[in-house]
């Protein structure tokens, strides 16, 4: 498969639950999910079969990164907008967890 993606495939598909990733899939290839329903897999035939089986939309790395960054930016805004009067920054972190950080896809 001609690709500008290096050693990975980039997909967008919602996790459909049971059967979405099987134990056999996990043993055959590396796969990792990211915000925005973005999935990154080793670029091998088995992972392409996984993408086809789940009707995943193929993306370039740049397109996938844009989706992830958009979700994280929204999460950062949600974190910034969630405030309690008189709350210190440390207390806010205790309440909400740390502000979401940037994610760089492999």
């Amino acid at each position, binding site marked *: 498969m001609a690709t500008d993606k290096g050693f990975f495939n980039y997909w967008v598909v919602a996790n459909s639950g*049971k059967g979405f990733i099987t134990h056999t899939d996990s043993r055959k290839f590396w796969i*990792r999910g990211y915000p925005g329903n973005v999935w990154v897999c080793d670029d091998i035939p088995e992972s392409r079969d996984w993408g086809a089986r789940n009707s995943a939309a193929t993306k370039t790395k740049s397109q996938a990164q844009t989706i992830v960054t958009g979700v994280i930016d929204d999460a950062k805004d949600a974190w910034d907008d969630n405030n309690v009067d008189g709350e210190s920054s440390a*207390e806010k972190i205790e309440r909400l*967890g740390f502000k979401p950080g940037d994610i760089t896809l492999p």
Partner: protein
Amino acid sequence: MATYKEIHGVNVQYRDSDATAVEGDVWYNASTKVLKMYGAAGAWSSGGNLNTARGHGIMSTQGTQTASIYSGGSVWPSGSPLGVTESYDGSSWTEVGDLNSNRQDGGGAGTATAALHTTGSNPGGHVVLCESWDGSTWTEVGDLNAARREVGGAGIQTAAILIAGNYAPQPRSVNTEYFDGSSWTEGANLNAAKSNLGAAGVDASAIAFAGTAGGDPYSLATAEQYDGSSWSEVADLNTIRVNIGGAGATGTAALAFGGANDDGDPQALVESWDGSSWTEVANLSTSRRAIHGSGTNTSALAVGGETPPASNAAEEWNMAASVETIAFD
């Protein structure tokens, strides 16, 4: 470099087929011309999705991969506690009876049909409440002695442990309470105060791991093991984490997964505890913090959490011996 023969005393066998093997066997399959091994390798697969994506709930920690409940929690970043309870049958989640008191960051114990949901917080603050689940309804039972949240939970419905907890401005606690089916009693405490920890096991054998003491570094790798009478410090995890998930039948066989690193970034890392050391095993497919679990270190369920935003994902862990092909780059 030592050879296979120098280590094992024999050469790698040539076989025409993959004969029945014992764990650790390595052989060359002359028919398919590949090197094979028989070993235990763990892997995660997708489970059914929660109906309500959320973290900070509690699991029936002694439930199984095919029968567990997940109750309470909150949807990031609202921080508003929920009472929703969902039951898992091995393939899908079904909404069942709500908690009487909406809560997040409590402690869990028990099974899918006999569980406890203890402490946590609601908009009024930290609570001492404990509710008991009979498979269809939650009923309030004996309160704890100290209100707190971000705790660790272990044990069964009639013999449970609630471990440490609390968050700023209240100090982290070493306080541990034990439930006999009707009332909570203060007992042996942790050696070091922490919150947002993982826990696994039962009242006679448990382990509490990772979390935070609120200092710098924020996240911890420390672990303590309970032998039924006292807590002892044991080997640290390989990676510091907070808001970590856990599963395990005893304090000598547990699984630690997910959580956040010192910057709060969700992690996919998984470590297996054998009673003496932590070993990194296959990662979750999605990095999540505020994740929860049930089951054992060989058959576990990891549920919910935050990527952020909130996740509805469940993943199933299985560690089984099988014939594997050894690949060379």
